[in-house]
């Protein structure tokens, strides 16, 4: 079953100069996951070397001889043969230095490297559980997910983290060493263990999605890709019986609702358009429908996780009409979310919802208690709340926000708000 939102795979009617990047995107991660699963973290470089070498061979061969009939199958065959060659050499070597090994073990079974769809999916899913290991930092988990499960190049991973190649290479190397050291197996967690492991996996996917959705990078294509990859991996979890639990559905629902505003929330320069200023005709109806479907699936249980609360909040945001019921519901959901788990973003959003329900004066009183003076979004919010009643205070807050904002996109957005305020003042 294909998830409609993802790039079509297996369509090769595109121009030849696009095909390798395209195949790299769709096939590298599959080959690497299967190879990793076979070789394990003990020799982390082997899987990636073989996969990269496969694509190099493709570039050379196809450049000389033209495209094969089924490029993906061709890649699988080459990867499988390279892996077998490696295994043969390795076994031969071990045989020579340790003669105790019987010659039979020189035989590499035909099924050794299984690149069937089933095994690719299983390998990717098992890999997802393996790299979302509690021993790794969240950055390392996301980095490995991008590299191994999403087939991102080191440059792209570095871009996503606003970092450089060297730092990312080091981080990934250390992470793999750690997995090796901890003897992490690439396998499904046991039924009793799946719950606790799933919590980390979901947290990683949630952050991967946020990395794309809220990232400071102006590269909109990359940002969208991060979100889509998080959704694809989430969908893998839904397709696997043991991990198809309400929280996973709630998370995918949340992602669908957010992603539905992707086209509306950024202009052509990658600048943020705020929710109340968005062209609602650009909201993606199909994704909203998908979001509702998964939210419905998510309610087939007794658990209300933070993903549920966030998904329902996101659902209310897909309703265009501004009415008191909408904001009252959003406010109560933020209250519950904050009581479950504090986060500065939720605290600020709650205050915004409060202003919609109880008025700006009430919201200002609550906002001033928040103690988030070092957060530029706090000052953006207060700038918004003060704008009708106390222009000078609004300007002061926006100026502080401008000083605190870290990225060019945010700075230019705040400067725009400031301009519109000061312009009014002059008139």
């Amino acid at each position, binding site marked *: 079953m294909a998830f409609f939102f993802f790039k079509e795979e297996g369509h090769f009617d595109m121009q030849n100069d696009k095909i390798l990047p395209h195949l790299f995107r769709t096939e590298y991660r599959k080959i690497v996951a299967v190879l990793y699963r076979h070789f394990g973290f003990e020799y982390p470089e082997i899987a990636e070397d073989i996969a990269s070498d496969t694509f190099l061979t493709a570039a050379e061969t196809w450049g000389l001889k033209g495209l094969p009939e089924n490029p993906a199958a061709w890649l699988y065959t080459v990867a499988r043969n390279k892996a077998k060659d490696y295994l043969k050499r390795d076994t031969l070597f071990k045989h020579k230095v340790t003669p105790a090994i019987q010659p039979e073990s020189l035989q590499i079974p035909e099924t050794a490297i299984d690149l069937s769809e089933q095994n690719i999916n299983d390998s990717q899913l098992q890999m997802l559980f393996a790299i979302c290991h509690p021993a790794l930092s969240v950055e390392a988990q996301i980095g490995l997910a991008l590299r191994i499960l999403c087939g991102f190049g080191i440059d792209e991973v570095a871009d996503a983290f606003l970092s450089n190649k060297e730092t990312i290479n080091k981080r990934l190397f250390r992470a793999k060493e750690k997995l090796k050291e901890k003897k992490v197996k690439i396998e499904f967690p046991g039924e009793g263990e799946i719950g606790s492991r799933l919590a980390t996996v979901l947290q990683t996917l949630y952050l991967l999605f946020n990395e794309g959705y809220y990232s400071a990078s102006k590269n909109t294509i990359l940002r969208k890709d991060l979100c889509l990859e998080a959704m694809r991996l989430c969908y893998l979890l839904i397709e696997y019986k043991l991990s198809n639990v309400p929280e996973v559905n709630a998370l995918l629902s949340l992602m669908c609702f957010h992603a539905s505003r992707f086209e509306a929330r950024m202009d052509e320069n990658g600048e943020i358009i705020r929710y109340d200023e968005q062209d609602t005709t650009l909201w993606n109806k199909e994704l909203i429908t998908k979001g509702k479907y998964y939210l419905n699936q998510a309610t087939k249980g007794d658990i209300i996780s933070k993903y549920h609360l966030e998904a329902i909040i996101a659902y209310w945001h897909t309703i265009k009409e501004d009415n008191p019921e909408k904001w009252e519901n959003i406010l109560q959901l933020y209250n519950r979310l*904050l*009581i479950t788990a504090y986060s500065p973003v939720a605290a600020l959003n709650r205050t915004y919802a409060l202003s919609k329900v109880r008025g700006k004066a009430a919201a200002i009183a609550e906002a001033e208690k928040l103690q988030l003076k070092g957060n530029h979004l706090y000052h953006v919010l207060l700038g918004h709340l003060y704008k009708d009643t106390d222009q000078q205070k609004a300007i002061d807050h926006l100026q502080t926000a401008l000083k605190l904002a870290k990225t060019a996109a945010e700075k230019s957005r705040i400067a725009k708000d400031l301009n519109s305020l000061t312009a009014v003042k002059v008139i």
Partner: protein
Amino acid sequence: MNDFLLIFRRDFNPGENQPSPEKLQGMMKDWQDWMGGIAAQNKLVDPGNRLAGDGKVVRADKVITNGPYVEIKEAIGGYIVIRAESMDEAAEISKGCPILTIKGNVEVREIIAM
């Protein structure tokens, strides 16, 4: 920052002062807003629990009575734990507690850190 226990007391036999269903609905929102406001300041340590109205009291002579409001009119209805700079701040936060609107009260007690 220290932790403070807020204990909510109210009359469990309000009799004629029983609030209307509309008032009850409004109170539910007030509770959520008040708790949400504390949580938004990252000062909610534990959302605590609400307690059922009936209970028993075991006394020194091991006599068990239905209680606890045989002798006192008000009973504990629930509690939460918050974080605050001082007893004064904790008391200030308690001023927003919806229990006060139905003539209940909040007892603020500092939790002794181990």
